[in-house]
């Protein structure tokens, strides 16, 4: 059995950034396990640009953004095993993985960094009625076929859901000569970023139909049509508004779910709101030495923030490994009115941290208020707050008390 100070599960943007920072902090005995043949995670298939604006001040493609980290990881001589899938993680941080080259690996780690990313919500999870023909793809699967395998999945396209990958794929398929007939979003507002609505739909005259959903999928062999309908405020289709749209392809962009099956195996408890782990300000789960960051913790809209969060994780993990422990975090952070979720869910009240949150619905002219009991820790005015955009607020230590739970509200 191998022993490592830190095992990093997943060599995508979170895992790469965490590994580099750990190394900088003097943790030398670390290992990245990546199930794909190459590092980079989902960025490998994101060939559009717009990555790195915050971090590098320039617009990079996904592979370019990833490559900057991969080059540094290689220069730093950090151990990686690619083509290696982790099968199990125990609460005692024993990692079991399968690899063609190395066989069945068992690694005892002092710290485990969970950086597995997320997966796409499927048609099955939505229980969309209809048949099950060929031609129904999640946006990420279509993106993989088109960008990594050069394969076209269809010509006449309807997109359900206005998540960012769906918007990107609307543009991508249009550029490949497909006819994207429209994007249908069940909510009364888009779930993707405003810049993607502008650059991927409006620039190509692709209509976005809010408060609409797909109520039937037709065709026995290949998809022949979908039926869309308008929805009421409770997302129920309104009878009489159905419209049949002939198409051979339905792309689903209906949400991302943090991929936490390994976390659950280790005994990590998940927050039903984020579907990621409950973590403290050190990105540490309830199991000491097991950390999580990036999309496995909560779904981000920009990779730049994934990298930052992973670096914060690595700072804490390095402290855990080098000092032996981290300050306790007895205080709870609660999501108050209009707040969908918060990260972290526990804090020490003595150290600075970055608070991440999402609002529940689009709001104008609001204040984000962070309180501990009667004490106002922070108040930030926002002209516009959208669920599609994660809000991150640095919280300074001198504003905090270590004697009261925290609540975050949007007022």
């Amino acid at each position, binding site marked *: 059995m191998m022993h490592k100070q830190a095992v990093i599960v997943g060599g995508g943007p979170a895992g790469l950034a965490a590994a580099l920072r750990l190394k900088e902090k003097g943790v030398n005995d670390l290992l990245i396990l990546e199930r794909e043949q190459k590092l980079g995670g989902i960025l490998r298939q994101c060939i559009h640009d717009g990555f790195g604006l915050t971090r590098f001040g320039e617009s990079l493609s996904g592979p370019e953004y990833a490559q900057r980290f991969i080059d540094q990881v290689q220069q730093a001589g950090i151990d990686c095993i690619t*083509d290696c899938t982790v099968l199990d993680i125990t609460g005692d941080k024993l990692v*079991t993985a399968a690899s063609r080259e190395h066989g069945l690996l068992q690694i005892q780690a002092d710290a485990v960094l969970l950086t597995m990313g997320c997966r796409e919500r499927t048609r099955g999870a939505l229980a969309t009625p209809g048949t099950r023909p060929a031609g129904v793809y999640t946006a990420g699967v279509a993106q993989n076929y088109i960008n990594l395998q050069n394969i076209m999945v269809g010509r006449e396209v309807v997109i359900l859901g206005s998540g960012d990958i769906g918007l990107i794929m609307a543009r991508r398929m249009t550029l490949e000569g497909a006819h994207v007939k429209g994007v249908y979003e069940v909510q009364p507002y888009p779930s993707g970023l405003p810049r993607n609505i502008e650059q991927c739909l409006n620039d190509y005259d692709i209509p976005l139909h809010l408060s609409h959903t797909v109520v039937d999928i037709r065709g026995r062999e290949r998809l022949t049509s979908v039926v869309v309908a308008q929805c009421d405020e409770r997302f129920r289709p309104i009878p009489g508004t159905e419209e049949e749209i002939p198409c051979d392809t339905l792309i689903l962009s209906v949400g991302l779910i943090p991929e936490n099956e390994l976390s659950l195996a280790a005994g990590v408890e998940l927050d039903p709101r984020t579907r990621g782990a409950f973590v403290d300000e050190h990105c540490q789960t309830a199991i000491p030495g097991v950390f999580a960051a990036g999309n496995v913790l909560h779904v981000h809209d920009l990779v730049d923030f994934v990298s930052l969060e992973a670096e914060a994780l690595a700072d804490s993990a390095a402290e855990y490994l080098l000092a032996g422990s981290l300050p306790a975090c007895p205080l709870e952070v609660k999501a108050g009115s209009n707040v969908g979720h918060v990260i972290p869910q526990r804090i020490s009240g003595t150290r600075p941290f970055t608070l991440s949150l999402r609002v529940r619905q689009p709001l104008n002219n609001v204040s984000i208020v962070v309180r501990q009991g009667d004490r106002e820790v922070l108040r930030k005015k926002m002209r516009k707050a959208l669920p599609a955009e994660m809000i991150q607020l640095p919280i300074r230590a001198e504003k905090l008390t270590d004697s009261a739970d925290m609540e975050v509200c949007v007022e």
Partner: protein
Amino acid sequence: MQSYDIIIIGGGVVGSAIARELTRYQLSVAVLEKESDVCTQTSGRNTGMLHAGFLYKTGSLKAQCCVEGNREFDQVARELDVPFKRTGKLIVGFTEEHRQRLLAMIERGRANGVPGMELIDRTRMDEIDPSAGGNFAIHCPSSGILDPFIYTIALAENAVKNGAKYHLYTEVTGTEYLPDGRHVLHTSRGDFACRWVINSAGLHSAEISAMLGIPGYVIQPVKGEYFVLDKKAGAFARIPVYPAPTERNTFDTHATPTVDGNVLVGPNSFNVEDGEDYSVRQIGMDGLQESGARMFKHMKREYYIRTFAGARPKRINPATGEIQDFLIERPEQAPSVINLVGIESPGLTSALPIARRVVKLLQEKETLQPNPAFDPTRRGIVRFHEASREEQARLIAENPDYGEIVCRCETVTRAEIIQAIHNPLGVCTVNGIKVRTRASMGRCQGGYCETRITAMIREELHKAVTDVRLTNGDSAMFTGYVKGGEQA
């Protein structure tokens, strides 16, 4: 023209069981299947129950075949390497009326030869499965669950191993007799000649029967919709839980664990004209959610991973609409034909007993010579996920493809997918790989592995992108390459 002693029309679980039983003798046997695989219709679209046999009229073929099939299934599962668990079953009741119906059911079960059925109280129910709804229940220890895909595939593969030929995508369009008394079957893939025809066409058994000169049978397809729930829900389901039967002696929505650890909730039940319309309806899903939650306390939206539908081909009396027994006949008006009509539930449990009755009808007309080379055993693909850590290490050492996980949700390796792609029946669809390996059956539904599986199908079978199919007919996955992509 290809010529066989015996041609079986329909390669579902019954047709495949007949093919397998006939290869015990020195006969040339072919199966004509109109679809891409052996379990894409009724045989693959059901609850996967090994029924006990208490539901059917005493003395009926359904009762006899079911009890016989149930009794022998431990051995069958061993011989053919079929995932199977004898879980027992609970049939739960809430009211006094239910109690009376359950007591009547125990009586019928005893008369049919079903062992060990008893009425139990809530305390015993909690010991057996606390997540079951209801105030009291029948416990029937002989019921079980099996993988209906693998069972059908295993019978077919064992038949092929012993000499039978499968012709997929081969739909019978007409039949006639040759002057020498043999049959000619016209199909979508040319003509076939044979001495005997066995009609095992399931949903289409009445049409084939009429084609063979035996008109008058009526099949009423009765459709049922299902939810498949995540293995997280499966952790709460130990045993199939059925509600007390309705006045018409049928079951409403039930919750059944699968051999793989998922839960099936369903089916509902309604008559349809077109038995091959497998669409699911919103109203059906809403109903299953409501009635399913009464049977299974963990019926929650967050556990949905898929829906599906199937249809039971019920033979009805055209005058009264009454549902009739299995029909297994060698009719005088159509020489050299064995005709099976209305083989529905419990057809999965009854497949081999039905097949033996077919063989017996044949033996009444001619002497069959035993096939000395017949081997009743078949081994399936060794599953990495089910192996111990030591075995996993050994598997990878022997074949590095076992070290490459293709489907992360179900932990299916490249080695298993490659074995499935080169299956003995020559099935080459994405769904064919799925039912043989479980790849893409998990919670991400192929989000991770489907792109890899289609690439492997193309590589292993040298297929063009436009020739990769999801399932039956022309279910093409792709329309071609991206601009300039073919050269890339």
